[in-house]
């Protein structure tokens, strides 16, 4: 199942990107090769541009009609006003570094990114009567480039995330080991025995895996994500010790992860923080709704994991051990 979905995400992603790029080429969605008519407004009104070698901070006005014509769409109604640093050359032409971080930049943002300028778009200006004629480099294959960049960037980021876990993992696994040696984890397991023997029939009631799973789920409930991961990975290691077939998930593992991903939430810490930052009058309002939604999901998740484990395509086949 995971094989198919994993492949599907990649294939659908690449095909969509290619499809969009082909569409952009056929529609000339970025107005490649067509010069722009723009108006320049400096600090002291209209820029006529005579001072050679000087640089001014100006506003570049593009009419809605121009935007519609270049971007091949009727959906644009407003003019664009873009901040730009304009440097004049000896021959009366000029170069501009356009800041595309403003709201009216629209598709210019995509062009700047595609041309490798990040948040600035480079353009050439030439006088044309009262206005200026602007030329920008051709833009093509935007989405395929985006896909490539995203893939390389995230590959590095994934390693950073994994390595970033080392510290917190070491800390909690150390503390956990002390509790284990002291017999505390076994006590904990004994305490919740009536529940765990039903949830995890294949795991001995006082196995260290049970204690770790309880720790993981409790930490998750309290919104302590940093502490939850080490406990959870410890639990997986303990469950793996009971696994007769390495490389294949056991029923207990899947039930544990069903509990983990749907986990009953008492304190949705991140969501509350974001709500507070966004100016909510009652950021903690979602505690009740999150609790009920996650409780419902958890009950279903455990039931589904039990039911699916009996479906033929998912059944744990002890015979073909590897």
């Amino acid at each position, binding site marked *: 199942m995971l094989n198919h979905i994993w492949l599907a995400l990649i294939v659908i*992603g690449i095909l969509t*990107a290619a499809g969009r790029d082909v569409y952009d080429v056929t529609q000339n969605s970025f107005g490649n090769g067509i010069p722009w008519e723009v108006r320049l407004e400096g600090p002291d009104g209209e820029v006529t541009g005579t001072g050679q070698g000087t640089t001014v901070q100006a506003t570049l006005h593009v009419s809605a009609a121009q935007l519609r014509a270049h971007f091949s769409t009727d959906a644009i109604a407003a003019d664009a006003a873009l901040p730009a640093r304009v440097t004049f050359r000896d021959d009366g032409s000029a170069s501009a570094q356009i800041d595309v971080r403003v709201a009216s930049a629209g598709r210019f943002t995509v062009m700047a990114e595609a041309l490798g300028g990040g948040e600035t778009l480079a353009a050439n200006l030439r006088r044309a009567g009262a206005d200026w004629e602007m030329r920008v480099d051709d833009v093509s294959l935007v989405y395929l480039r985006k896909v490539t960049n*995203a893939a390389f960037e995230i590959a590095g980021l994934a390693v950073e995330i994994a390595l970033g876990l080392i510290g917190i993992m070491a800390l909690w696994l150390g*503390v956990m080991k*002390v509790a284990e040696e002291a017999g505390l984890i076994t006590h904990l397991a004994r305490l919740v025995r009536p529940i765990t023997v039903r949830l995890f029939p294949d795991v001995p009631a006082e196995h260290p895996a049970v204690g770790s799973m309880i720790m993981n789920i409790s930490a998750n409930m309290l919104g302590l994500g940093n502490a939850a991961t080490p406990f959870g*990975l410890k639990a997986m290691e303990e469950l*793996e010790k009971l696994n007769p077939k390495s*490389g*294949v998930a056991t029923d207990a593992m899947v039930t544990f992860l*069903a509990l983990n991903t749907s986990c009953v939430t008492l304190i949705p810490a991140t969501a509350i923080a974001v709500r507070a930052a966004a100016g909510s009058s009652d950021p903690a309002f979602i505690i009740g709704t999150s609790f009920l939604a996650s409780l419902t999901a958890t009950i279903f998740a455990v039931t589904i994991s039990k039911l699916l484990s009996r479906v033929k395509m998912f059944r744990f086949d002890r015979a073909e051990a590897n």
Partner: protein
Amino acid sequence: MDIFRTLVSVISALAIPALMLFFLGYGAFKKVKVYEVAVEGAKEGFQIAVRIIPYLVLMLVSIAIFRASGAMDVFITLVRPVTDFVGIPAEALPMAIMRPLSGSGSLGIMTETMQAYGTDGFIGVLVSTLYGSTETTFYVLAVYFGAVGIRNTRHALPTGLLADFIAFLAAVFFVGLVL
């Protein structure tokens, strides 16, 4: 309700220090050589983190490609008839789809949605409830199974995704109930 909220914030501040104190204190009481044993346990942290790397890289790259291509817009158009039928509001759909795929992606969508539709209306409360009540299923599966080298995950993914779907339905229901 206010007392409950104070309690909640006290618990979240106290939980970690209290847990450390309790574990280590109990260990010392049982005459465990706490530092020596803790170091022994901590060594594992490095191995587990390194073992996760290939799983996490491949999982996150596949999701990143899907996100960067803008395929989500296409996907939303496809599932829209179904979700309209079961009553998930269209405004919350990007959140519902991104939540199991990417933690940072859904955090961004939650923020954007609340900026556009307000924090305390139906949509605002719904997206934050969605964010708060489920985990990033793909990430959890990659990390947890990666840590023990599980490649055949059997029914873990369908279970996780079905649970996410039920969480969304439940969130729509309960938020509708209180607002």
